[in-house]
């Protein structure tokens, strides 16, 4: 068969479905698979609502007439100086220990939590991807130095160090962003390094090198786009961690400083009132739980919607655990059956 006839065949046979097939990229396929995953869609909706509420927090403040930092000793506190219950005196979710509107404060807290979660994850992802990719691609001494540094960061008792840093530098939003990013990037870097090591051995990297591509071109044109899928999953799963981290710091009084509201410091204040005012604990905790759960479930959904390989990489730990459980179950199940013929 001559080449020209092949060319004609190819064109003739494939011109028809051109429109139908065009633009079916991996991202679009992933998106479609994601939309067929009910849990992921619900999580996405929850996150969108949460973000919308956070953005609309000033509107709620205006609507209720309760700015987040204003205390209402007359209407917002009982005679004994305790918070009022939800629905009392126009406080939809009740008030906090200082007689402030709990709903408005939770919504303002959402702004802080989501902002910290997203920004620290962004910083940590950029840093982690850069370090991990450089370490994995260049290998050798560069890898050894960077990887040991990553090990060192991961080996820190991070809460203790974060507390120490917050004490030394004084609590502020910048310090929180820095501290959380610093303890998150190392984990991302380690996974990105592993991925880079495996992508580096692919034939298309060798093909690029044979064309004369330099290390930067190979890293940014060939390795980075192939890292995006796992990194996106990772980032989605790191956002809730960052949110919880921020809450932990704020709860301990070393994060966001009062009177600025954050879920962590609301919960911290609430612990003195939990016997008298359940809503003071339940509502901010629920906001934290729902948000982090939604991000985690969305991350799982994205991972499942990506190609199966990604799933296996991140599910390896989970699968091992499952396997172990299954083996144990099998052993238990087998033992009576195996011993029975022996006894007979």
């Amino acid at each position, binding site marked *: *068969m*001559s*080449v*020209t006839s*092949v*060319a004609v065949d*190819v*064109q003739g046979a*494939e*011109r028809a479905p*051109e429109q139908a*097939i*065009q*633009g*079916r*990229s*991996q991202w679009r396929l992933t998106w479609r698979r994601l939309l067929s995953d009910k849990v992921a869609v619900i999580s996405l909706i929850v996150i969108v609502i949460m973000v919308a509420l956070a953005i609309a927090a000033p509107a709620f403040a205006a609507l209720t007439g309760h700015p987040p930092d204003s205390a209402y000793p007359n209407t917002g506190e009982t005679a004994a100086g305790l918070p009022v219950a939800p629905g009392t005196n126009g406080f939809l979710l009740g008030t906090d220990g200082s007689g402030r509107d709990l709903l408005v404060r939770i919504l303002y807290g959402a702004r802080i939590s989501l902002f910290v979660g997203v920004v620290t994850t962004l910083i940590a992802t950029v840093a982690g991807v850069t370090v991990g990719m450089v370490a994995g691609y260049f290998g050798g001494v560069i890898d050894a130095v960077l990887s040991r540094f990553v090990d060192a960061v991961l080996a820190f008792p991070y809460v203790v160090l974060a507390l120490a840093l917050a004490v030394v530098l004084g609590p502020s939003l910048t310090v929180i962003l820095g501290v959380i990013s610093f303890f998150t990037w190392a984990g991302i870097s380690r996974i990105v390094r592993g991925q880079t090591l495996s992508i580096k051995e*692919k*034939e*298309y990297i*060798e*093909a*690029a*090198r*044979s*064309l*004369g*591509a*330099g290390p930067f*071109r190979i890293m940014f*044109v*060939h390795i980075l*786009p*192939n890292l*995006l899928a796992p990194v996106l999953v990772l980032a989605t799963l790191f956002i809730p961690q960052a949110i919880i981290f921020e809450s932990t710091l704020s709860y301990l009084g070393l994060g966001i400083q009062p009177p600025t509201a954050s879920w962590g410091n609301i919960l911290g204040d609430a612990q003195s009132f939990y016997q008298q005012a359940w809503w003071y604990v339940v509502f901010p905790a629920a906001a934290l739980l729902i948000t982090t759960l939604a991000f985690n479930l969305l991350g799982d959904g994205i991972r499942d919607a990506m190609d199966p390989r990604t799933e296996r990489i991140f599910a390896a730990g989970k699968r091992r655990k499952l396997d172990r459980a299954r083996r144990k179950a099998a052993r238990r199940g087998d033992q009576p059956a195996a011993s029975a013929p022996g006894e007979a």
Partner: protein
Amino acid sequence: MGAPDAERTAAQQADGQPAPRPESDDDILIRVENVVKHFPVKSIGFTRRTVGQVHAVDDVSLTIPRGKTLGLVGETGCGKSTLARCVAGLIPVTSGRVLFEGNDLSRLSRRQMQPYRREIQMIFQDPYGSLNPRQRVGSIIGEPFAIHRMASGGERKRRVQELMERVGLNPEHYNRFPAEFSGGQRQRIGVARALALRPKLIICDEPVSALDVSIQAQVLNLLADLQDEFGLTYLFIAHDLEVVRHVSHAVSVMYLGRLAEAGPKEPVYETPRHPYTAALLSAAPAADPNTAASRQRIILVGDVPSPIDPPPGCRFHPRCPKARQLCSQEEPQLEVKAGDPVTHVTACHFPVEAGENLAAAGSRESGI
């Protein structure tokens, strides 16, 4: 039994000096001289001491005349691909020289190598692994232009589409991803990419091994047409002897990092002198059932030995049906054997004679 010894001396006398080169140096596009590539074997653990060497390629020399195809055959793991990567400058050689139009490429830095990258291109074995799954076909084929800052914008697109048309792809598929193509089409993408810079040498590393037989023929014909059109020179690596016979002008047979036999296609295929070549040829399926029925298969015993610790003497001797004591002691050199044309060289102490039945010898040896 004394006959091969006598002939060996005769051959040595006939070949007292190196074989005269049939082509002048101007006609030789690439000359590989005594290339050695060893990979260190590192111990596991903190110190990572070097505990051994993988002798991937040991003292291999090749020459390819301009516009010709050299077929390089051998079993998996014999060092073919390593040699290809040394020639392409993808991995540094341990020793030896790679001369491209007389310029030694083996000691060049990445920057110094850059102009030669345009002249030497590669086509890879795996049409799925050799294309970046996240790149569109247009950027894959256009990448050589981007790297060498040649054509840009609309000009680049035009040239990429020309290339796509030339290799038999629909230029309208410019914006598609590799996953949307079949294996044969993907290999065409690889060919178009290799062709983009109008190279002089294309190293084909098992370019059709991963393809269906029907698709193999299409790709091979495409490569042949391109050779005629652009005067390309190919280093064609394969383990399929019939494919190599189809495309090559000359053939080199590798075994465990060394050349066993090399020469023009006809003598190597018609009258193989190295027992390994003979065994390979006898194992290849024949298209003609009459030939197949009359042929004696030489069954080699054992596996390919480890390249970390290759056997002493002739590397083939543990599996060779003709092996004698000398074979395990003295390493045979590539030389012209009696009755062969000067371009046909064999590294064997006891080369195969015409009409000799190696299959019988093999079974007798293994029976002892």
